[in-house]
């Protein structure tokens, strides 16, 4: 079967599940007794296993399968959650992630997982004990004097129908628990009408109806497969509920084209745990009655969030970003035509027409806002990977870090979200590696041993601000100056004249790293200059606030969207060009006779500073039509620390423009960043200020 069409979906979903796993395992580390978290982890791992097996990625399936085994043992409280196990689970995630990555780059994704699976098997038998002292005392379960036992129930030859059913340990635990709470379990065989179309929809209705009063703990094929219509005309489910059998039967039977073939109460005592051959936790069935009671008692003590923790499926649709771009284009076109209508109505004033146009105006504005919003994604997507990263880093460096994340729900345009991840990783690594001191030093300074790193996103006007703040040693302007002089980035005289803020901004200079020694974590040459370049390429800016021994705050300011920017429209000859407002410092006018030549470069003195000039008509090869006037308009633009004055013929005004690609044929032309469609329907080019000087 050709799976390629499902590939994208697989990649996306597996990444999501891996992200969820990362997050949940982190939570588990803090709350090792929370059954709800374990459940969620288990569910994600299980789905991942199912998906990868369907897609034919055996190694992923194999690894997730082993993880599942360990998780179900953890869940059954036979083995305690300790740091060694958590570390192992994280290693598995890393391996899974790299496999998924290799698949996305076209490989088979079959890495060697034998080491991990061996370790997992060990962990499953409780043989993996933390080298260091576990965070919380090892679970009571492990204090039970005899070796840890999986709690398999009495084996009585079970009901025939369940033979085909692979009830694994996890399901069994669920059943046990359900029964303890006096729920009844039913095994239902469902059959669909042979002529039934949209089988998955029928299956979904069965699930929905049953879940109204109970919980489906198992289905064959899995719910995922049912959803994908990977089944014939029948499937089986086990549901736990407090309702009567009649009601259960009715719930399923009442659905059109669905028939209940059989419904059987499941008695736990009769369940034979049919472990899949590969699902073999060694020394499985041994002692029947004793451990059950003991474990049951333990189970009671643990927080059970079982039923509550069911994730509510949110109603969303995945849409290709290209379709959204299309939608955006159409809206843009609508806006342009609306402007035309407005022009027509002003020349022939007809009251009725005016009213209609006003109405259209309101609708298009709303429509534009809605489309813009659709393109927005919460920054959560980017932030989610940081807790794990910080945990690993802190461990590696022997520092105690408390990462506080705020404003996850802040929304940014999809294009910005895709780009902002790397700079943030860099800043956070920097904060942890260079900003935060070692615990020993913190003690000497009288600071709390645990340092706080804050990652905050929020709206500020038409911008989104992202802050990375640490409570570490801060930046010392004098030290930075010395370093810069020593590295030859600036001269000693320049250093003397520099104020503190300018000195602090030195760390953005290329080839500048303050770390005394190059560590594995950061300081590998790609410095903060790369961060700033990236952010500026997103039309954003970075600022630093710092105080010695109190910490450093990096403040990133980003536009809400890259698709629409504010720009200054200017005339060059008879052509109109757009200059992004973010790059403009000011506009001014000069008298031609004030222009001086320094080394063949035209410059002008602007408030005592030498400003190099760029004649746009020359650079852009604009046919000369306008006589040089007595006054020249100059747009002062900035690229990093450098400034230049662009000479234009006249300023038209500020306008919001939608950035469009000028097409493949014209890509990579220097000086042009893109194209925009103006209100009159004409195309205007957007200047790429960075390449002009």
């Amino acid at each position: 079967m050709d799976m390629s069409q499902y590939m994208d979906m697989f990649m996306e979903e597996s990444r999501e599940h891996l992200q969820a796993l990362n997050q949940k395992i982190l939570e588990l580390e803090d709350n090792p007794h929370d059954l709800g978290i374990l459940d969620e982890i288990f569910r994600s791992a299980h789905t991942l296993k199912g998906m990868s097996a369907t897609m034919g990625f055996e190694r992923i399936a194999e690894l997730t399968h082993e993880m599942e085994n360990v998780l179900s043992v953890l869940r059954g409280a036979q083995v305690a959650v300790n740091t060694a196990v958590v570390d192992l689970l994280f290693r598995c995630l890393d391996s899974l992630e790299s496999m998924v990555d290799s698949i996305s780059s076209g490989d088979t994704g079959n890495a060697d997982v034998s080491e991990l699976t061996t370790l997992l098997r060990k962990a499953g038998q409780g043989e993996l004990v933390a080298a260091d002292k576990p965070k919380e005392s090892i679970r009571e379960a492990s204090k039970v004097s005899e070796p840890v036992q999986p709690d398999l129930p009495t084996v009585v030859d079970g009901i025939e129908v369940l033979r085909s059913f692979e009830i694994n340990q996890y399901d069994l635990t669920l059943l046990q628990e359900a029964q303890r709470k006096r729920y009844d379990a039913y095994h239902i065989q469902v059959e669909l009408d042979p002529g039934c179309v949209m089988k998955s929809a029928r299956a979904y209705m069965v699930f929905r109806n049953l879940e109204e009063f109970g919980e489906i703990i198992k289905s064959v094929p899995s719910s995922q497969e049912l959803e994908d219509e990977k089944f014939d005309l029948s499937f089986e489910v086990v549901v736990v509920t407090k309702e009567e059998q009649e009601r259960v039967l009715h719930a399923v039977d009442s659905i059109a084209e669905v028939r209940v073939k059989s419904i059987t109460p499941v008695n736990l005592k009769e369940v034979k745990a049919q472990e899949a051959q590969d699902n073999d936790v060694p020394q499985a069935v041994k002692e029947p009655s004793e451990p059950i009671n003991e474990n049951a008692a333990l189970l009671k003590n643990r927080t059970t969030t079982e039923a509550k923790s069911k994730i509510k499926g949110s109603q969303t649709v995945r849409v290709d970003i290209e379709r959204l771009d299309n939608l955006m284009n159409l809206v843009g076109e609508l806006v342009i035509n609306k402007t035309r209508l407005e022009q027509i109505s002003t020349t022939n004033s007809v009251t009725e027409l005016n009213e209609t146009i006003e109405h259209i105006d309101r609708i298009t504005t709303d429509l534009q806002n809605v489309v813009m919003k659709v393109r927005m994604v919460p920054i959560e997507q980017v932030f989610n990977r940081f807790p794990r990263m910080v945990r690993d880093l802190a461990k590696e460096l022997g520092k105690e870090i408390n990462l506080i994340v705020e404003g996850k729900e802040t929304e940014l345009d999809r294009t910005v979200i895709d780009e902002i991840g790397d700079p943030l990783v860099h800043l956070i690594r920097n904060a942890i590696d260079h900003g935060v001191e070692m615990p020993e030093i913190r003690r000497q300074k009288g600071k709390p041993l645990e340092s706080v790193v804050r990652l905050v996103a929020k709206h500020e006007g038409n911008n989104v601000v992202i802050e990375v703040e640490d409570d570490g040693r801060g930046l010392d302007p004098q030290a930075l100056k010395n370093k810069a002089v020593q590295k030859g980035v600036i001269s000693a005289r320049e250093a003397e004249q520099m104020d503190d803020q300018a000195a602090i901004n030195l760390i953005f200079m290329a080839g500048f790293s303050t770390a005394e020694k190059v560590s594995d974590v950061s300081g590998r040459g790609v410095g903060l200059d790369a961060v700033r370049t990236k952010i500026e390429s997103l039309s954003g800016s970075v600022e630093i606030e710092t105080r010695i021994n109190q910490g450093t705050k990096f403040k990133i300011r980003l536009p809400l969207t890259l698709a629409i920017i504010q720009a200054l429209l200017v005339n060059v000859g008879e052509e109109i060009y757009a200059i992004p407002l973010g790059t403009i410092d000011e506009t001014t006018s000069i008298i031609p006779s004030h222009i001086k030549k320094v080394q063949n470069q035209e410059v002008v003195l602007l408030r005592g500073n030498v400003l190099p000039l760029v004649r746009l008509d020359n650079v852009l090869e604009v046919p000369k039509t306008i006589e040089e006037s007595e006054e020249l308009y100059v747009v002062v633009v900035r690229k990093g620390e450098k400034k230049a004055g662009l000479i234009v013929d006249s300023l038209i005004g500020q306008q919001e423009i939608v950035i469009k690609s000028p097409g493949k044929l014209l890509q990579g032309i220097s000086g042009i960043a893109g194209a925009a469609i103006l209100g009159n329907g004409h195309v205007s080019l957007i200047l790429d200020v960075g390449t002009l000087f």
Partner: protein
Amino acid sequence: MEKVDFSDELQLVAFSLAGEEYAVDIHYVQEINRLLNITRVPKAPYYVEGVINLRGNVVPVIDLRKRFSLPPRETTDRTRIIIIKVKDITVGIIVDGVSEVIRIQSSAVEPPPGLYGSVDLDYIRGVGKMDDRLLILINIEKVIDLEALAEEE
């Protein structure tokens, strides 16, 4: 070897350029427009006239006279832009006028003769004979330099 379409019949959009009749396979043609307002793009290849706004999309436009090294001419009422889509690239080509859609037997298309007028042979796929008319089939992929674009990626 240039690929020739072996299906029996070709549908071509015929257009005129510097007094000669040319044609392009209808499969490439998206639409035919009157001359729109063209924005010049500095430092673009010499044959690119500029960009136009095609219902919200910015589309580059090639002047076919310049591409074929033919003498320039003032635009007239009949001047048209043929919007062409090859692979995922959309471009417009400026021609002197579009006459009709022609069906022609593929057997009536011959490979380009050794020497044909002033147009670079690279840009020609063949010559179609219809009664006493001669149609020059242009090789659109070469005209927009598709290979060079692919290499850049």
